[in-house]
């Protein structure tokens, strides 16, 4: 009667042991990496809006101030999505007749708002306040990226808690003069040591503190 197992089973046995170890570690490691990818965070996902509003035209070409549409960014928690009326301000009736404006027309006639898709979504237990960040000298660009280069607005930052913390622990590098709040590409243009010392001055001027208490954001 031959042995229970053939010669080559030795190799198989050790191979499979190795495989088990590798797979288990691999799965855990893989998950940890995956949640950090943009697939998981929704970064740079292209989101279609009911109206093909192009920030490149409005923010870049026409140089319209962000606050013209996002009017409440300096007063309230939410930056504010413009009321349909705001479009009509510039887009006269002739313009309104074109196909892309159909939702706008519908909204005006039905008095129902345009259902924009949310791009930068935070969980409901996170209370983010635009006004205070703006007041403390954190620019739009810092979190929203080069909106003036986006045909469709996309989420520029991971919006993970770790990401928030990185700035809340050390806000100074992300400060800029309030006058430059809406400026695009400002950070890239201000990287000299002089700018760094300027930022430190701003920190004192604006009374910027590192806030890492939980209830700063969770209430």
């Amino acid at each position, binding site marked *: 009667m031959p042995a229970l197992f053939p010669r080559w089973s030795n190799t198989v046995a050790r191979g499979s042991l190795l495989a088990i170890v590798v797979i288990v570690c691999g799965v855990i490691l893989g998950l940890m990496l995956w949640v950090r990818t943009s697939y998981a965070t929704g970064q740079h996902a292209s989101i279609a809006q009911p109206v093909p509003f192009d920030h490149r035209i409005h923010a870049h070409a026409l140089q319209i101030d962000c606050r013209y549409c996002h*009017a*409440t960014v*300096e*007063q*309230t*928690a*939410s930056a*504010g*999505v*413009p*009321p*349909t*009326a*705001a479009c009509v301000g510039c887009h006269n009736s002739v313009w309104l007749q074109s196909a892309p404006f159909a939702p706008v027309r519908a*909204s*005006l006639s039905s*008095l*129902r*708002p*345009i*259902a*924009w*898709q*949310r791009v930068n*979504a935070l*969980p*409901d*237990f996170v*209370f983010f*306040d635009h*006004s*205070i960040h703006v*007041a*403390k000298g954190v620019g739009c660009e810092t979190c929203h990226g080069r909106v003036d280069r986006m045909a469709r607005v996309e989420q520029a930052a991971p919006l993970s808690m770790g990401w928030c913390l990185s700035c809340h622990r050390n806000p100074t590098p992300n400060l800029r003069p309030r006058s430059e709040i809406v400026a695009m590409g400002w950070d890239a243009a201000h990287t000299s040591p002089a700018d760094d010392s300027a930022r430190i001055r701003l920190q004192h001027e*604006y*009374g910027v*503190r590192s*806030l890492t*208490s*939980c*209830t*700063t954001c*969770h*209430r």
Partner: protein
Amino acid sequence: MHAHDHDHPPELNRRDFLRLAGASVALAGLDGCSRMPAEHILPYVDSRPELTPGIGSYYATAMSVDGYATGLIVESHEGRPTKIEGNPAHPASLGAAGPIELASVLQLYDPDRGKSARVGSEQVQWERVAANLAPAALRSRVGGRGSGLHLLIEPTSSLLDEELLASVLTAHPDARIYMYSPMLGDGATDAAVQQYDIANADVIVAIDSDFLSTAPFHLRYARQFADNRRLARPTDAMNRLYVVESTFSSTGSAADHRFAVRPREVTTVLRWLLTSVINGDAKTEAPAWIAAIARDLRAHQGRSLVIVGDAQPASIRALGDAINDAIGASGKTTWYTTSPLVGHHVPVHKLADLVGAMDAREVDTLIVIGGNPSYATPRALGFSSLMRAVPNSGYLGLYENETARDARWFVPMSHYLERWGDARAYDGTVSIVQPLVNPLYRSIAPPELYATLAGTSNGGARSYDLLRASWTRRTSGDAETAWSDALQRGVTADAPMSRVAAPTTFPSDTNPFEGTAFEVIYLADPKIHDGSFANNGWLQELPAPLTQLTWGNAGLISPATAHRLNVSDGDIIKLSSGQRALELPALVVPGHADDTVSVHFGYGRTGSESAARDVGADAYALWPAVGARSEAITVTRTGAAQALALAQTQSTGAGRDPVHRATLDAYRASPSSVGQRSGRVLSLYPEAKPPDSNTALQWAMTIDLTTCIGCGACVVGCQSENNIPVIGASEVRNGRSMQWMHVERYFADNGADAAMQPMLCQHCENAPCEYVCPVGATVHSSDGLNEMVYNRCVGTRFCSNNCPYKVRHFNWFDYNKHLSETELMVKNPNVTVRERGVMEKCTFCVQRIREAEIAAGRDGRAPRGTDVQTACQQACPTNAIVFGSLTEPSSEMMRRRNQPRSFAALAELGTEPRVRYLARIRNANPEIHDSR
């Protein structure tokens, strides 16, 4: 409709809320967990400066209970009212609000409200009903002079209503108007009401009067009462309150001396007191304490006061007037004014007259406006069946309740937050009632019905027009400015009611009933009043003052009586008198009068209100007659039993006395002995660093147990501000109450005294809950808050075990799962709605703190401790709760905290709470030793 708005700028502001509901719900943060659905952003269609998303807006309005208005400020988010607060400018509020007012915002969103008009069982538009109510149409029924037309209205003090009712009478000269509410009884139609000035009364004797928590104007009285017993220094003056009552009331708990007497002894006490006051120390058969009180009253000529409860018959209240005359109180601390209720320009009749008319088949058309007479009348009166017999009966009300069931047609009435109107406070001050939202359902306001009846409109009239018209009519000078001013301040310039002489009634000289075994006393419920608020979960779940009973009523009896009847809490007893009988569970209350059973009205509802149905027992079934305060009764033990939903199962402090108490004299003798017991404990760890007050404010709270009357306003205020769910009777019975603020009650062992201790998270600097949490879901903030991070909590519940105050509450189930869309709208968008399986607890209203900080940051200034008021503090009628920062020594909070009588709960554990209590000081009369 939108174009239409522009005619009415003030109303336009708060219209489009249903349209916004979607966005609002999304903002409210209904899901505590991190799974995120694709969300829509719904901006406004047209820009409106006064309605900025994310900023709460505040509007002044007024709510009437039994016709007496309390001025309120209502917070509104994206067009949906979420929070009620008192209006400091209003005499009946002085900034405070009672449980009923605070909870009324939930009633607005009540899914059980009547949603559409009907005739018979057929759903119709209001206009259809209105057509039949036009004078022409109606005369064919009720005769040319309208003799067949009878209106039964709930008490109202609205000038507009009175005007329109007058015009109804012009259209139907012989029509009759009746005004009824069970709590006012026939008093509703009295020409005069008695006013008190508590602020200037140093000695107060309250006889069967809960003037601090249920009487009209109680918020004002409570504030004035508390202001005279703040004791900033031990040597400060302090007023003195004697309470003589059968049922232990909030007022009783605030008393310096309380005497429990049987209802029928009230007359005796009054007569004794009268004699003693008049005859000085002349010999009477009265017990010593009567004489002592009399001396005290006389010693404070003109600065003393005797209050006899409104529920007592006029003949008995007349005795009180006599005493007040004798002690020089009349004209100084008490006086009479004309009643603020309608009836001065239109004749209003008593309910009895209507019943008579219905009996005599004289009623063709009966229209009931508000109230709920089919339920809230003595069953013996048979109102329900009489109403059914009326050929054409209609009901305008919030709910399809018992009365609606008896009415041929029904029209939903607008909630006061949905309609325009006006109302007088108890002292006659007029306020404009302005709506916060468009009616949720196709409902109308009484003025619109009156206008229809008067023929001034064919049902199309809107109360806004009617009000503006009437306003312009009665305002001399610039009506517009006066109008906008009235809207902003919440009160108008109108003069209060004029003083009148006391009504001449002859004091009764016979006791109502002699030598009976048991008596029953009927009381307005401190939570749901006469039953009109029975469908309000916040009120039903609010532990009743002193009894701590939720979701229902009980027959309250004294320990001695319980022993005599051989019953204990929950045993069903049967009260019967002749044909009338009532079965309900007994509840033993120390300090209750012996051989007396107290029963509260408002329970045992059978209407379409789902939350109210079958909760408690219906006292109206036993009530002998309108206005009856008490009667002789036989009490038997049925042997059945029922578990009561008690929020607190222990009645005394079990020898631990968590509340520090002392008499004023003892406190003055040695102030330090009353306050803090030291609480240093040894630790393996180095001494914790004192919190850094340079970088941040250090939040703290001080609660004065001397002025706390246990009314529960703080509890409801907190529930409303912090999205605390309603969990129902069975969960309360399971000990799963969710209220972050709980007014704990400790009876003295002899029942003579009851101490109240509002218990909330103490925000300990060495918090025991924090170091046992495995995931750091509860940690300390740099400004000294004990933070609870719902979204980090995994629900080990270790924190609750280690919390010596047991102020943490756990979401055993998903308590928000089955809320209707409207109920979701009452949620505060600035507070996370907690999901199943997480802990929650008082946060010191951290959302308000952070908003204040952000606001300060926007303005580039440092936040101040005084920028923030917590919800409980705001609601408190007696200002017993103050909040602020340890870094501001001059603040009221710190000044109180530094009083010698301040102490920390369970200080010996070394938890270093940020909440401090002020010991309960009673201004005892040294001459009296036998409080009972």
